[in-house]
């Protein structure tokens, strides 16, 4: 790495990129960020910082109202009531009934429960699953397990170049023995909004009406990235199952949920005491569940449209700042949030600067206090392995290798977005000069 510029980019030569200014120690009313005063955290799609109110609620529950919801004494009843309130909040947010919510240990577990649970329950009705090629690893790997362990067949539907899957392509992949279609609402790497509503409508016409095939194929939507940033309505989507996660919406890690429409059968992944109406055993993670509900309440305070509007503003501002300085920037996916029916989530922006490896840019940005990622955090263990999402989109190699993901939250400010844009431009400028890319 370069010996110059320990904490900030040197930028400014040839490109109008002002040096980073120190800012916002302890913004948003919390303690200072772990990254220091220069920190601009743009990795909320990997995990978001819990709201201060969430952390307080979690702590209160852990230290004072710590009962086991299955206990029937006062402390237990109080814990059960707190879980019930969070269940109601989540149900309201996604347009479900509280009895249709199953709390889990996170989004990956919920995705596994959806795929394996449905497959086990309907194994005699068909052994075929349809999913997009750009699903989260927890969906793809769970489906692979169905393939190898239960003898299922998979149809992976590729997206277009902008990352979106065409509803007719999904429909065409459905067979008489399909038990489940799984499609994410928003892609975690490029932010593309999938046409889940349209797919849900088309599937309605394909569902069996009697016998073993009644209600099949079921429709599962992974809404981990969209919850709290866009409207998520299980009825409007026609979803039978829907996955959400706490730590992506300023709630705690270690908690998620699966919406299971009334009447949908699934075999649990975790057996035991019969918690969560027999669908997921294990003592409820009360602080986690309460924190999740608290986080959703906090977001609702902003109003669902208001959150999306603010996030889009940050994304547009950063993109405009970079575009004005780096003509060669490539936006992966459909970066436009302004269309009447945006096909891009308001909080995820995936950019490529061909010629500069994404990892190099990411490390360089980190030294200037800007935290981004090169893909999903989940696949970052497999270093050197290319993003399956960008590859499925059919993007050229140099675009795939140079991609960085920027993701915003309501805790980011417009000033941060602009400043981050400047730092990115400066980093790109410096790295391309060094690489002799002129």
């Amino acid at each position, binding site marked *: 790495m370069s010996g110059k510029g320990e904490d900030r980019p040197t930028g400014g030569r040839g490109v109008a990129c002002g040096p980073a200014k120190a800012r916002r120690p302890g913004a948003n009313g919390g303690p200072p960020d772990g990254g220091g005063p220069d920190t601009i955290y743009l990795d909320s799609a990997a995990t978001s910082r819990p709201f201060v109110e969430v952390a307080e609620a979690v702590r209160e529950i852990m230290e004072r109202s710590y009962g086991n919801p*299955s206990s029937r*004494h006062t402390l237990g009843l109080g814990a059960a009531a707190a879980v019930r309130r969070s269940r109601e909040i989540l149900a309201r947010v996604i347009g479900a009934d509280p009895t249709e919510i199953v709390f889990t240990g996170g989004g990956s577990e919920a995705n596994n429960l959806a795929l394996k649970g449905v497959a086990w329950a309907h194994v005699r009705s068909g052994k075929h699953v349809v999913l997009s090629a750009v699903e*989260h690893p927890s969906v793809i790997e769970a489906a692979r397990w169905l393939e190898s362990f239960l003898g299922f067949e998979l149809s992976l539907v590729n997206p277009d170049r902008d990352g979106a899957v065409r509803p007719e392509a999904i429909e065409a992949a459905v067979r008489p023995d399909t038990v489940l279609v799984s499609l994410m609402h928003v892609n975690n790497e490029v932010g593309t909004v999938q046409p889940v509503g349209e797919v849900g409508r088309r599937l309605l016409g394909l569902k069996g009406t009697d016998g073993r095939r009644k209600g099949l194929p079921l429709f599962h939507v992974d809404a981990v990235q969209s919850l709290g940033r866009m409207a998520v309505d299980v009825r409007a989507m026609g979803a039978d199952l829907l996955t959400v996660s706490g730590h992506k919406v300023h709630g705690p890690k270690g908690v998620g949920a699966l919406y299971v429409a009334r009447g949908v059968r699934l075999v649990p992944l975790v057996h035991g005491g019969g918690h969560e109406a027999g669908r997921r055993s294990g003592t409820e993670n009360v602080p986690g569940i309460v924190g999740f509900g608290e986080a959703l309440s906090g977001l609702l305070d902003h109003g669902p449209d208001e959150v999306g509007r603010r996030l889009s503003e940050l994304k547009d501002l950063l993109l405009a700042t970079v575009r004005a300085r780096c003509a060669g920037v490539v936006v992966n996916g459909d970066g436009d949030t302004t269309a009447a029916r945006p096909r891009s989530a308001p909080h995820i922006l995936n950019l490529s600067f061909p010629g500069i490896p994404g990892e190099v840019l990411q490390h360089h940005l980190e030294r200037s206090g800007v*935290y981004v990622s090169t893909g999903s955090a989940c696949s970052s263990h497999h270093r050197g392995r290319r993003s399956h999402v960008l590859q499925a989109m059919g993007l050229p190699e140099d675009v795939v290798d140079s991609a960085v993901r920027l993701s915003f939250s309501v805790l980011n400010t417009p000033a941060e977005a602009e400043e981050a844009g400047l730092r990115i431009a400066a980093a790109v400028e410096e790295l391309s000069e060094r690489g002799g890319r002129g």
Partner: protein
Amino acid sequence: MTSERVIAGMATSDGGGAGERFRSVYLDHAATTPVRREVAEAMAHYMLTDYGNASSVHSFGRRAAEATEEARARVADLMGARPEEVVFMSGGTEADNMSIRGSLAAYSDRGRHVVTTKIEHHAVLHTCEELEKEGLAEVTYLPVDRTATVDPDDVAKAIRPDTVLVSVMFANNEVGTIQPIMEIGRTCREKGVLFHTDAVQAFGAVPFSVDEMGIDLMSVSSHKLYGPKGVGALYVRKGRRIRPLIHGGGHERKRRAGTSNVPGVVGFGLAAELARKEMDDRVRRLTALRDRLIDGLLGRVEFSHLNGHPTRRLPNNVNVSFEFVEGESILLSLDKKGIAASSGSACTSGSLEPSHVLLAMGIPPEVAHGSVRMTLGTQNTDEDVDYVLEVLPGVIERLRAMSPLHAKAVAERAREAAGRPGERCESGPVTPGAR
């Protein structure tokens, strides 16, 4: 404050939830424990300051990953294991599910027979039943004696050539009996089968050494040892194969997908560290409180019996049956007096069926119905025990006043006592309080 909305009006351990002020004595630590202050503080740091995703390659991620690994080492220390043998999970139940399902899948070439006991936690029993239903396992359920102890000879006899796994809990969650783990471990080693133990209740309560005990797989939970809920771990001895329950990203060495619950894991690690440091003190203090509570109750209340083993039991477990009363009624009365206890495991307290553990021990259903579990914790004091000894006998007496069976038993005893001098000197009925 938004936090008010969700948690307003919640009962707290200091009795703030009710109108009447009373002494508040929490005696349900086997169900769950309060989180220690320093544990909560450590967790808050990883929620508000170092909140990164442990899989991220930047410094937020690295700090989260380092904290996770430190916690792993702490949990491993308390087990007497190596850090790489610890797989974090969402809790003890998930760990039980994975250990059984995951090892059967990994060793399907050996067979599909499992040996377990009738007194396991439902996480083990229901998993076994489900596997039987799916045709993936054959299961032998071993009996226990009157003290809820499994006979290691029974284990040895039950092992067949196609046995993959023996699963025997370390200590029972209802009656606290500690099993002869060393002997069972040795037997399993000799016979070449895997040994899993559900140590959810024992971990943090008694000293551990997975090597000496011959354990291959072990389930533990954080919220039973003053750590947070939603976290647990599965110990997997190095070299033993296991298939994951949850697939996805490559977390936990590909054994458990899902973003690491960093604050939870950190809290668990610290709680384990505190348990290790305070082990001797905790065991000594709790054992003394336990025995005083047991002796006090059996001495003060007639027709009462201790369930479980008199000495080989968890330092914090008291389980007593009171004849002629319903456990549920006792609990309600105790709760009104600020005492939180339970009638069995919290997990099944919603059902009115008598405990499967007490029935397996050969305790008659009508006696099993009148059992109360009181599990002590580090915050309990001598005064708490005094308070229970002051309140509970009165509660039992009031409830028995409504019982014709009790009146009959007392009358019979009085008749026998009165008639005894004139009759042949043979032994009378069972002395009250005796087991």
